[in-house]
C-alpha cells in the first residue's frame, strides 16, 4: 500500500489516546442515548412544563415527573473561559480548551464547549454531540455558517474524512462501491476497497477501483486469515473502517430455511463483523479520530419473516455493535451505526419501493462521520422503523412479522 503518510518519529514512543472521564448519572445516560440519535432534547416537567438542565430526577420547580422533549437549539453566550490547566489526561492532551456558558432558548443555562469564534453576547446554535468518551456533550457553534472543521475542539467530536485513510470492507457490493466513491469524492487520502473472492479479471478495469486515491485489496470478512492479511497489507495508519459487508437472501425458519444461506449471512454479518472489528479496532485505536462505521439493516431491530436468516444475522451484528461500542469507549474510537431499509440493489429486486439508493447510504455514512453522529437512519423505511421501534418495540416486532 502506498499513500502519503504523516511524518512520525520512528523512535518516538507510541502516543496513548485518552478519553474524557465517563462517569455519568443514569439521567445523563438517557440524554446521551437521545443525543446519539441526533436529537437535541432536554427534560421538561410533565406537570409545570419547566425545562431543566443538568439532567435531574425530579422537577426543581414542582417536583413533577420529567420527560425528554426536543428543544430549540439556540442560545446566547453568557461568559467564556479558556481552560489551560487540567488534571485530566484527555484534556491535558488538548489544552487550551475553550468552554463557556450559554443561556439556552429552551430556558436553562448550560456549560458548553465553545467554538473558537464565539464570545459573550453572541447568538449561538448548540449542538448535542457525543464526546470521545461516548457521552452527550453540548457544543456551541456560531449561529451563522462557519468552517467548523478548522476548530480543533470541534474535530474532537467528529471524524474528518479529508486526508484520512479509510477501508471499505466489501467494495464489490452496490453499497460498498458507492461508499468508496463517496469517501474518495469527499477527499479521503486513500480509500482501500476490500474485495471478497472470487477475484474478477474485470476488477482491474473497474472505473471506481481505478479512481485516484483508491486501491483494492483482497478482503473476505468470512475468512480470518484474509482479514489479517488485509490488515498486514494496509500496514500503516487506518482512520476509518466502513463495514459494508452483508449477505441478503430470502428464506424462513421452518419454511425454506436455506441453512447454507443462513449460515453465510451469520458468517458475513455477525462473525464477519467480529473478525473485522477484532483485527482493525486496535489499529483505529491508535489514531486521533478513529471510527468504525457499520451499515446494518433495520430488520436487525425486529426480525423479518421472509428474510429470517438475514434479519437474525443483522440482529446479531447489532448486538455485537453495542459490545464493540462499549469496548471502544476507552480508546475514543467512534462506533457508528447506519441503519438502512431495503436498498436499490440486486439483493432487493423483489422488494417494492421505497428503497434507498446506495449513493444515499454512502453520503449518509460520510455525513455521520463529519457530524460525529453515532446513529443514523437512512431513508424513510429505516427512519420509520426506528421511530416505531423506539415507541413500542413489542408492537413493532408484531406488526413487522404479520
Amino acid at each position, binding site marked *: 500500500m502506498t499513500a502519503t503518510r504523516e511524518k512520525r518519529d520512528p523512535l518516538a514512543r507510541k502516543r496513548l489516546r485518552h478519553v474524557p472521564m465517563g462517569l*455519568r448519572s443514569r439521567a445523563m445516560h438517557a440524554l446521551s442515548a437521545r443525543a446519539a440519535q441526533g436529537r437535541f432534547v432536554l427534560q421538561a416537567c410533565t406537570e409545570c412544563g419547566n425545562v431543566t438542565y443538568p439532567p435531574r430526577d425530579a422537577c426543581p420547580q414542582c417536583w413533577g415527573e420529567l420527560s425528554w422533549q426536543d428543544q430549540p437549539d439556540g442560545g446566547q453566550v453568557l461568559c467564556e*473561559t479558556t481552560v489551560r490547566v487540567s488534571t485530566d489526561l484527555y484534556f491535558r492532551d488538548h489544552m487550551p480548551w475553550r468552554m463557556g456558558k450559554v443561556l439556552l432558548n429552551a430556558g436553562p443555562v448550560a456549560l458548553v464547549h465553545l467554538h473558537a469564534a464565539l464570545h459573550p453576547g453572541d447568538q449561538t446554535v448548540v449542538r448535542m454531540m457525543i464526546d470521545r468518551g461516548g457521552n452527550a456533550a453540548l457544543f456551541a457553534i456560531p449561529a451563522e455558517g462557519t468552517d467548523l472543521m478548522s476548530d480543533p475542539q470541534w474535530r474532537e467530536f467528529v471524524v474528518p474524512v479529508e486526508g484520512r485513510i479509510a477501508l471499505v470492507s466489501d467494495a464489490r457490493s452496490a453499497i460498498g462501491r458507492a461508499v468508496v466513491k463517496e469517501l474518495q469524492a469527499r477527499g479521503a487520502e486513500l480509500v482501500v476497497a476490500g474485495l471478497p473472492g472470487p477475484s474478477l479479471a474485470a476488477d482491474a478495469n473497474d472505473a471506481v477501483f481505478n479512481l485516484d486515491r483508491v486501491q483494492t485489496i483482497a478482503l473476505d470478512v468470512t475468512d480470518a486469515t484474509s482479514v489479517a492479511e488485509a490488515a498486514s497489507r494496509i500496514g500503516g495508519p487506518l482512520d476509518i473502517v466502513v463495514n459494508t459487508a452483508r449477505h441478503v437472501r430470502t428464506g424462513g425458519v421452518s419454511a425454506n430455511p436455506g441453512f447454507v444461506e443462513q449460515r453465510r449471512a451469520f458468517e458475513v454479518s455477525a462473525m464477519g463483523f467480529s473478525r473485522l472489528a477484532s483485527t482493525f479496532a486496535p489499529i483505529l485505536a491508535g489514531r486521533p479520530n478513529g471510527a468504525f462505521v457499520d451499515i446494518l439493516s433495520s430488520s436487525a431491530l425486529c426480525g423479518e419473516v421472509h428474510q429470517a436468516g438475514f434479519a437474525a444475522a443483522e440482529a446479531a451484528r447489532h448486538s455485537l455493535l453495542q459490545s464493540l461500542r462499549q469496548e471502544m469507549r476507552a480508546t475514543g474510537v467512534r462506533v457508528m451505526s447506519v441503519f438502512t431499509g431495503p436498498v436499490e440493489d440486486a439483493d432487493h429486486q423483489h422488494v417494492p419501493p421505497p428503497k434507498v439508493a446506495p449513493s444515499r447510504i454512502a453520503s449518509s455514512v460520510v455525513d455521520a462521520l463529519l457530524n460525529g453522529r453515532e446513529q443514523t437512519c437512512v431513508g424513510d423505511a429505516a427512519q420509520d422503523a426506528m421511530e416505531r421501534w423506539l415507541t413500542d418495540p413489542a408492537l413493532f416486532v408484531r406488526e413487522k412479522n404479520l
Partner: protein
Amino acid sequence: MSKAQAPYTGVAVCAPITVPYQRFSAEPAHWWAGRALRHLRAMTGLGPSDIDGFCFASFSSGPDSAVGMIQHLGLSPRWLDHIPTGGASGVMALRRAARAVQCGDAELVVCLAADTNQIDSFRHSLAGFSRFSQDAVYPYGFGGPNATFALITDAYMREYGVTREEFGKLCLAQRANAGSNPMALQRKPLTLDAYMAARPIADPVHLFDCVMPCAGAEAFIVTTPERAEALGLKMAQVLATIERHNAFPQDPVQSRGGWAMDIDSFWETARITPADVDVLQVYDDYPVIVAMQIEDLGFCEKGQVVQFIRANDFTITGDLPLNTNGGQLSAGQAGAAGGFQNVTEGLRQILHMPLGDQVPDARIAAVSGFGLVNYDRGVCTGAALLEALP
C-alpha cells in the same frame, strides 16, 4: 418577614486551633483531626470525656463520617453533627453548636475540620465531587473549580467593570497579611506586576487567583461562658448568623450569593453596621468571591466594589483588615478546614491571640463562608458576627 432570630445567649466561642498546614501529607484526615485535638488539649487541658458535642467537616475522611471519627478519636458525645458544606462549614458548625449549647443539648462542643492532601487527592476528590459536576461540568475541559470560577469571574468583570487590578489588590493585601503568619504556605511578598504577569489557568483566572490545596486542620470550641471561664479561656459571643443554600437559582450566572437574601436581618439582629467591623474574614477560594462577599455582606453597594476596593486598605494595618492570616489564597486551602479558618482567624484577632500581626484594638469580626461548587456556582453561604467578651 420571617420570625426574628433569637439572640445567642449563654454561648461562648473560644480556643481557635490551627494545625500547621502542609502542602502534601501522606497522613490521612484522621491523623490531622487527632493533631487538632492534641493542640486543643495543650491549650485547654480537655480530654475525650470532657467533650459532649462534636461537629465535624472533611472531604477526605472517607469512608468515615463524623461517626467513624468519634470512635476513632475516643469521643462519646451526646450531640453529633457532620457538615459537608466545605467553605461554609465553619459558620454552619458555629451556629449549630451555639444553639446546642444555648439549649443545653451539649455543654462543650468541639467543632473540627480536617483534611489531608495527598499527591493525587485533588484529582480524585474532583472526579467524584457531585452528580451535576460529573454530568455537566467536568466533561467540558475538566478545569475543576478554576473553570467554574473563571466563568463566574468573566461574567462578573463584564457586568461590574471589575478589572484584574482590583482582584490583584485583594490578593496583594492578603499576601501582605500572610507575611507575619508563620504558618502561611505562601509568604513571599506579591507585587502587582507579578500578579498581572502570572500565567493564565482558566482565563481570566490566573495563577495568583487560585488557592494552593494543602493538608491541615482547624478547630474551635463552643461552650457556655461559665465553662470557658472555668477553663481560663478567652471568649467571644455570637452577635448574629445567617445561612442560605441554593439562593437565586434563576440567576443565569452567579453574581451574588445567599448572603444577599438575608443581609438586612443579619445586621439588625447584631445591632451593628459594617462600619463597626474590625476584621473581615471571608471565604476566598478566588478573589471574585471576596469581592462578591464585600458587596453582599453590605460593605458596599452592589456594583460599587471597584470603587470600594480602590478606596480601602485591606492589610492588617488598613481600614478594613481582610483575611488577616493571608486567607486561603496565601495560607493555603486545607479542604474543609479552609471553611473553618475564617472562624478561627476571626476569633484569634478579636481574642488577641494572633498567629502573626494583631489588628489593633480588634473587637468585632465578620466571618463569612461560601461552600460547595455544584454545577455552575457555589451553593452554600453563611456568615457570623463575633464580638470579644471582656
